[in-house]
């Protein structure tokens, strides 16, 4: 049986950056999901025209509650509407959970490195939260690359000290005052200390814009990381 489209109601919206939003949906009948999975959202216009897009879930399964990360695409058909115009209380159609490849399961015990470019942090945040929820003792590291401080998602939560998670922010355009690393794109030197802590045989999850993911994957394999241990998700 194909996965059904379910009717879900928007019950909350929070600003993550000047443009990015977290949308909270209530989806009755939701079967649950794994950290890293995504959903398709479908909107139907008055004339019957339909448009569907994929959005990552930013939080682990929690009953019928779904947390989506939406970064509006300039000129996009769906994301600007979802980000700012869909009224709280309104309904959309949702299908999922989707994708069993880019997931982290609590029974995984190997060390993990998460590499996020911009809003690519959303599915990785679901993994961070699932890891915390499971009280997992496996080593977890997150490298979050953003243009500047204003582009950080989940800033407060990731800024809080967490003994089970090592977080490093990389600024590509403007580093905050006091930063020891000058602003610039991800380099081999940024990954090296994290890769050292990834032994033995850890898994790397990379998510972000296509260019970022390609660069990160190339740097990782050049540094000797086995390509079979690298999982990537590109969102265009």
């Amino acid at each position, binding site marked *: *049986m*194909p*996965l059904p489209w379910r009717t879900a109601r928007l019950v909350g919206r929070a600003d993550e950056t000047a443009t990015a939003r977290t949308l909270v949906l209530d989806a009755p009948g939701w079967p649950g999901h794994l950290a890293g999975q*995504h959903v*398709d959202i479908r909107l139907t216009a008055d004339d019957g025209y339909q*448009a*569907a897009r*994929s959005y990552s879930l930013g939080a682990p399964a929690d009953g019928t509650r779904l947390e989506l990360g939406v*970064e509006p*695409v300039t000129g996009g058909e769906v994301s600007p509407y979802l980000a700012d115009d869909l009224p709280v209380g309104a309904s959309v159609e949702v*299908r*999922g959970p*989707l*994708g*069993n*490849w*880019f997931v982290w399961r609590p029974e995984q015990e190997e060390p993990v490195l998460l590499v996020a470019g*911009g*809003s690519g942090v959303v599915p990785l945040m679901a993994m961070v939260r699932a890891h915390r929820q499971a009280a997992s003792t496996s080593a977890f590291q997150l490298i979050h690359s953003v243009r500047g401080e204003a582009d950080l998602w989940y800033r407060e939560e990731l800024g809080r000290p967490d003994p089970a998670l090592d977080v490093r922010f990389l600024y590509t355009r403007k580093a905050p005052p006091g930063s020891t690393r000058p602003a610039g794109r991800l380099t081999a030197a940024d990954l090296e200390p994290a890769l050292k802590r990834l032994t033995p045989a850890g898994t790397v999850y990379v998510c972000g*814009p*296509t*260019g*970022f993911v390609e660069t990160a994957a190339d740097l990782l394999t050049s540094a000797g990381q086995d390509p079979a241990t690298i*999982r*990537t*998700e*590109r*969102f*265009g």
Partner: protein
Amino acid sequence: MTEVSPHVDGNSLAGPLSDIFAVDMTRAWWRCPDCGSTGPLAELHVYGPDPGLTARCAGCDRVALRLVRHEQDTWLTLGGAEGAFRFRTAP
């Protein structure tokens, strides 16, 4: 995002392919007959825009599958061959 990129990856096919296949296709293993690259469908490069999607080998761009949605139907071509299977995927 300021970066303009031509493709997403096979993860994005999970929804459209779930209309046709009973198993999650993003984990399906694929071997390119041209360059020999192997990996899960999740790592193919997918070119749009929706509703016409083409998945290509990440190594050499050979077409791995094409999927086109039109009205109630989804058309699926496996590999770069001609001819498509038509599935009725909407009521």
